[in-house]
């Protein structure tokens, strides 16, 4: 931790020495967009290509420059005091900064993201924590945590939550795991997760169920990543058959995001595979569909054109093309058309019988 504090100090020193030598100080950040990432299958995630944007202190940038430095100073205090702060709290703290305060939270979030990228760490390491929920877990897993008062070991058995579930904490670095499960199933919607939990699907299939609730949070991704790293567990994603489920959810889970590429190496599950719902499933299982929305089509075309992950896999390109040709999308809960538990009794077992056919 103090290593990062030291790096913050180094950056501050370099800014100051620039000022003392009467030249304009600069800060340079990795460019945060899909155009600055590449996909290396060997390493398994989207990583930065190294394009940088340099913010030079000028009249136009003086406000953001000042805000960035003040936020850096705030991070240094947090690290030194071993304190944490949500992004919302950071926004309120800035209200003490007179003219340099933020008017809206998105402005302070951007500055925090900039600093995170500047030091190529995740914001938790800077003391800034997200407010988002981490996701839920049920099934054959024992999580080993510590009691925050006594420091004693706590064994949390995820099979013992009944119809409820274990909630992934925001920081997962200190957790340890024990499991005999064969695989981990990451599910997009809480509704599908509930159905599988209620019917004890994890017992039947000997697996761990994780509800992502949309795009997986960093904590959720890190949790899955640590599980797979430590226990060498295969991860299967079960999401809606639309561009959002495929790229915003599945791709982020597997290889990380373009916006926070500097931390992808920690926050991805490279051994994840796409169980469904695939465009072919729509045909095979005669699923009811909705037409693709304009934004879906745009997202699919964009993925074909710009997403380095998609560009690497022929199979994905074909799947997108098939989806675009069909012009429809289907939700994972659409199996209810046949029978409420059709997904448990037919779909999942049939798919799991041939993991080789999963999309990469």
């Amino acid at each position, binding site marked *: 931790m103090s290593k990062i504090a030291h790096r913050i*100090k180094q950056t*501050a020193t370099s800014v100051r020495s620039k000022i003392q030598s009467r030249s304009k100080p600069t800060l340079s950040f990795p460019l945060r967009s899909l155009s600055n990432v590449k996909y290396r299958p060997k390493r398994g995630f989207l990583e930065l290509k190294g394009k940088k944007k340099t913010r030079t202190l000028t009249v136009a940038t003086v406000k953001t420059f000042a805000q960035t*430095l*003040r936020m850096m*100073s705030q991070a240094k205090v947090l690290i030194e005091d071993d304190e944490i702060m949500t992004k919302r709290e950071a926004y309120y703290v800035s209200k003490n*900064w*007179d003219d340099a305060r933020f008017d809206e939270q998105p402005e302070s979030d951007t500055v925090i993201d900039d600093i995170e990228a500047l030091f190529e760490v995740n914001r938790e390491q800077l003391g800034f924590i997200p407010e988002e929920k981490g996701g839920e877990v049920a099934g054959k897993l024992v999580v080993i945590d510590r009691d925050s008062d006594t420091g004693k070991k706590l064994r949390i058995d995820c099979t013992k939550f009944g119809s409820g579930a274990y909630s992934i904490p925001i920081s997962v670095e200190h957790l340890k795991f024990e499991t005999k499960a064969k695989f981990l199933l990451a599910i997009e919607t809480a509704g599908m997760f509930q159905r599988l939990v209620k019917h004890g699907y994890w017992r039947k299939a000997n697996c761990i169920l994780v509800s992502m609730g949309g795009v997986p949070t960093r904590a959720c991704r890190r949790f899955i990543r640590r599980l797979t790293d430590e226990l060498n567990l295969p991860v299967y994603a079960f999401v809606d058959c639309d561009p959002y489920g495929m790229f915003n959810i599945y791709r982020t889970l597997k290889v990380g995001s373009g916006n926070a590429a500097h931390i992808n190496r920690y926050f991805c599950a490279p051994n994840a595979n796409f169980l469904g719902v695939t465009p072919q499933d729509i045909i095979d299982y005669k699923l009811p569909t909705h037409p693709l929305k304009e934004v879906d089509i745009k997202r699919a075309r964009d993925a074909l054109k710009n997403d380095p992950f998609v560009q690497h896999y022929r199979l994905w390109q074909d799947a997108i093309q098939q989806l675009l040709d069909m012009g429809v999308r289907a939700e994972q809960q659409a199996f209810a058309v046949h029978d409420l538990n059709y997904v448990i009794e037919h779909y999942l077992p049939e798919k799991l019988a041939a993991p080789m056919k999963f999309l990469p």
Partner: protein
Amino acid sequence: MGKARKAGAKKKTKVVKNVGKKKRRASKQNRLKVAKTTKKAVEKTPKKELPRHSTAEDMALGQREISVAEFFMKNRHLLGFDNPRKALLTTIKEGVDNSLDACEEAGVLPDVKIIIAPAKEENRFLVTIEDNGPGILRKQIPKIFAKLLYGSKFHRLKMSRGQQGIGISAAGMYGQLTTGKPIAITSKISRDHPAHHYKLEIDAKKNEPRIIVDETVKWAVQRGTKVEIELEAKFQKGRQSVEEYLEQTAIANPHVSLRFVTPDGEAKVYKRASRQLPKQTREIKPHPYGVELGILIKMLHDTKARTLQSFLHSDFSRVSTRVAKMICEKAKVSERSRPPRIARQEADHLLNAIKHTRIMNPPTDCLAPIGDELILAGLKKQIKADFFTAVTRPPAVYRGNPFQIEAGLAYGGSLKADGLARLLRYANRVPLLYQQSACAITHSVLNTDWRNYALQQSAGALPTGPLVIMVHMASVWVPFTSESKEAVAHYPEIIKDIRLALQECGRKLAKFIRRRRKAAESERKKAFIQKYIPHIAIALREMLELSDRQEKTMVRQLTDMLERSRS
């Protein structure tokens, strides 16, 4: 008859009501029939009552000469006496114009006093205009003030405010018409002469003065003229008011001192800003390009010259004997023929020949522009603004008449920032207050693209902003659209020259506005820098544990650096 018709109509409506909707169509036809019959009846009766048609002899009895005074008494709106408010302004305008013309011609710096006092009766005022001019000879006074179309300015081509010799007599006539009171004149031509006092009425039928009072009085001034007219009028402030006229006169005539007393007894002074009298102008002869057939024939009749060649040479400007000979040759008329003997046909040929001969432009020493320096002085005197500019164009010619355009702009300061620019129009130093939309000056201002000069302008409107636009046309003959001299006629040469003058001013204005905007922008940037630089220093102090002194040094260094790089 009318009654009968009404009754019939009533009856008929009743019928319609009774019959109801179904039969409305039938009743309509019925109504038509009724109408037809009544019409016939009307045609029958007048034959009995109306007088029989007139014969030529009858008509001749009613045909007689119309005096110009009678004509203008009936058509007083042509001279600017449409309503009581305008009548007051026109009266003062005519009086002041005459005073200024007289003073300038005599080489005296004009000092004019204008007093509007309420008269005993409601809606009546006594207007007094007093100057320090050369005075008027006793025997001339009655004709000048009580005979329409009498004056010195009509027959000569010389730049002056008055042109026609109608104005002041018309004002007197209006006073006489509305109050029955005569016009009173007091005039003194030098310290050694007594002052003459006249009270005059105009005999409208004959257009001749009728003398009511003629006496010698004591007047404690060196010389000058005082005119008093009582008239029905309305005193108002604001747009198109006496005050506006005087203010605008002061702008275009910085050598004039005006003192004004309102009916409420409030005194206003428009001080003299320059002791420089306008340049004396020369009278010029007409230029051949401006002459029309009728005028040419009249000139041929009236000339003292004995040959056509010498007529052309001596009665026109810019016609040398050589050019005169050329014209004669082209027209195939002998240069030695006697002018009064030239027939209409030959005159026509002459005119054609003139058109096809290159003749030098008329001389321009007949023009006395205000000059850009004095325009600036005038504008600065009356308008509080940040920026002034003025331009005097070189002389130009329309229809053989030389003219010269001047323009001035005042911008910013206490002028209203929202709303349209204010346009001041002048002809021979006289402000034009009415008929703005009919004027060639307005036309040119509207058709100038002010957006090129850093101003806003909606299509077909004056530009928006804290701006006063002044345009002056000086000419030996300003082409007005009517006798009340309110708008300049649309000659393309005039419009073009006004546009050029405005564009030249506009370019200077744009330079000023852009420079000012740039300064404001850099001021804004400076404030911006000063707002955020301390925070950079605070953050660095916190991170590097610096002292207050080090922090302050850093603020100074940063401020220096950014301000240097601003441009």
